[in-house]
C-alpha cells in the first residue's frame, strides 16, 4: 500500500511533465496532421534556456528567492522557446506545406538533429547540473519503516501543471483564438472563408505547444537537477506515445495519456524491474492501440460532416 501510494505520487509527477509535452504533439497534429518530430528537442532546449537563466539570476544577479527565480526562468523560457518554435515553423515547415506528405516530417527530423547537435556543441556533451533548488518534502504517512512522502518539487510540478492546463483549456474552449484554432483543425479552407488567417493560427499553435513544453522543460530541470543535450529524445518519444495513447488530436487525451505513461513507468519500476520500464510503457501502447486504434479519447476516423 505504501509503495503503491508513493509510486502513484511519483507517477503523477512524471505524467504531468509528459502531458505538458504531449499537448504540443497533439495540437500540431490536430491542426496540420504532422508529427512534429523536433518537439522533444524543443523541450530539451527549453530546459537549457531555463538552466542558463537560472544560473544568471541566482549567481550573477543575486536573486535569493528560488521560487521567484524559478517563476522568472519559466516565463523567460516560455517566451524564448515559443519564439524559437515560431521561427522553426516559418523556416522549416511552412514552405513545405502543400508539398508531399512526408516532406515536413523529414524536415522535422532534420530540425531535431540540428537542435540536439547545436546544444551538444554549444553546451558540451556532459550533464549540466543546477544547484539543488527545492529540497524539502512532506511525510504523508509512515508505516513499517516505509515513509510515503511528497516533495515540494512534486507539489510544484503537479500544481503548476494543473493551473496551466486549466488556463490552457479556457484559452482553447472560450477565446476567439482557441475557436479559430479548432476551426482550422476541422476545416482550414472554411476557416479562411470566414476571415481567419490560417497561417497565423498555425504559427500560434506551434508557439503554444512550445510554451507548454518550456514549462515542462523548466519543471524537468528543477526535478532532476541536470539536463543533457540528448534529453529531448526519450521524454519526446514518451510524450508522443502519450499523445497517441490518449488519442492524437485530443487535448484531454494528451493529458490522460501523459499521466498513464507516467504511472505505468513508475509502477513498473516500483514492482518489477526498472530496466524494462520503457518496454512496459510501449507494450501497453501497443495493446491499447490493438483494441482502440484511435487511442483512448480519440475520435473515430469516419465522421458525418
Amino acid at each position, binding site marked *: 500500500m505504501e509503495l503503491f501510494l508513493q509510486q502513484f505520487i511519483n507517477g503523477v509527477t512524471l505524467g504531468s511533465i509528459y502531458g505538458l509535452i504531449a499537448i504540443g504533439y497533439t495540437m500540431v497534429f490536430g491542426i496540420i496532421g504532422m508529427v512534429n518530430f523536433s518537439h522533444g528537442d524543443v523541450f530539451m532546449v527549453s530546459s537549457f534556456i531555463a538552466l542558463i537563466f537560472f544560473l544568471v539570476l541566482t549567481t550573477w544577479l543575486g536573486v535569493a528567492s528560488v521560487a521567484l527565480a524559478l517563476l522568472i526562468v519559466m516565463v523567460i523560457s516560455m517566451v524564448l522557446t515559443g519564439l524559437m518554435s515560431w521561427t522553426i515553423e516559418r523556416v522549416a515547415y511552412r514552405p513545405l506545406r502543400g508539398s508531399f506528405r512526408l516532406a515536413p516530417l523529414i524536415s522535422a527530423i532534420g530540425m531535431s538533429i540540428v537542435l540536439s547537435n547545436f546544444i551538444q556543441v554549444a553546451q558540451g556533451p556532459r550533464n549540466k547540473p543546477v544547484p539543488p533548488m527545492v529540497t524539502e518534502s512532506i511525510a504523508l504517512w509512515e508505516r513499517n519503516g516505509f515513509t510515503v512522502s511528497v516533495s515540494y518539487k512534486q507539489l510544484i510540478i503537479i500544481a503548476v501543471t494543473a493551473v496551466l492546463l486549466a488556463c490552457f483549456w479556457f484559452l482553447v474552449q472560450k477565446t476567439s483564438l482557441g475557436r479559430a484554432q479548432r476551426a482550422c483543425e*476541422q*476545416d482550414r479552407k472554411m476557416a479562411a472563408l*470566414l476571415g481567419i488567417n490560417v497561417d497565423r493560427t498555425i504559427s500560434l499553435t506551434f508557439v503554444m505547444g512550445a510554451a507548454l513544453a518550456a514549462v515542462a522543460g523548466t519543471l524537468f530541470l528543477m526535478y532532476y537537477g541536470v539536463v543533457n543535450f540528448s534529453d529531448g529524445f526519450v521524454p519526446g518519444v514518451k510524450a508522443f506515445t502519450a499523445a497517441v495513447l490518449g488519442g492524437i488530436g485530443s487535448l484531454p487525451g494528451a493529458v490522460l495519456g501523459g499521466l498513464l505513461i507516467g504511472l505505468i513507468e513508475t509502477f513498473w519500476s516500483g514492482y518489477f524491474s526498472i530496466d524494462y520500464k520503457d518496454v512496459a510503457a510501449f507494450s501497453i501502447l501497443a495493446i491499447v492501440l490493438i483494441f482502440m486504434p484511435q487511442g483512448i479519447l480519440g475520435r473515430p476516423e469516419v465522421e458525418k460532416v
Partner: protein
Amino acid sequence: MTAVIETQDTTVAKVGPPLLKVEGVKTYYGNIIALKGVDVDVYPGEIVTLIGANGAGKSTLMMTIFGNPQAREGRVLFDGRDITRMPSHEIARLRIAQSPEGRRIFPRMTVLENLQMGASLDKLKYFNDDVERMFTLFPRLKERLTQRGGTLSGGEQQMLAIARALMARPRLLMLDEPSLGLAPLIVKQIFDAVRDLNRTEGLTVFLVEQNAFHALKLAHRGYVMVNGLVTLSGTGQELLANPEVRAAYLEGGRH
C-alpha cells in the same frame, strides 16, 4: 406536397459600378482548365444566380472569387478593388461571405460556436443582436444551439451555413447550391429567407444552383454556365422563358 416559390417581380436599377465584377477569368486545376474566360457582374441590391449542370465550373467560380484557387488570367473586382491575388481571409475581411458547396459546417463545434466563427471579423461585437436576427430568420437554429454541427440534418446545416455567413454582416452573400438534397419545403423556407433579406435589407446575393427553376424565380438576373463558359444571361424571367434553358434545365423538372 408542393412548395411554391414566388416569382421575382422587382427589378434592380443598375446604378453605379457593379459590387462584384468577374472579368475574363480563367482558372486551372493543374493543367486542366476549369473556367475558360468568365464574365459576371453583380450590382448592389441584386440577387444574381448562376445555373449550370454538375461539373460546369460553378463552384470553381465561387472559390476563384475567394482566391482559392486563384484565377490564372482575368480579374475579380469587388467594389472596384482588384482582389484576384488576395488570400482568402483578406477577401473575407472585405465582407464577402460564402455558404460554400457542401456547407462545411464545423462538425465538432456547437451551432453557437459555428455562429461565433461567422462573427469573427467583428470580434463578436454585434453577436447578441445578430444572433437574434438569425433566430427570427431560422427558428430551428435556436432549438439546436448547443448541438454539434455534425449532428444536424441537411436542412439545418444549410440554414446554419447561411446564418454563419450572415453573421459576418456581408455586403455580398454567396450561396453555393443551398437547395442540394433538401426537401421542397425546406428549400422554400431558405429561398424565402434570402428573398426577405434582399427586400428588407437590400442584401446583394450571388446564388449558384443546379435547381434552375427555383433559382431563376428567385433571382433578378441569371447566368447560364456550360463547361467553364457563360453561354447565356438575362433576367430571371427571360431565362425561365428561354427555350434553350427550358430544354436543358427545366423540362422534366417541377413547374
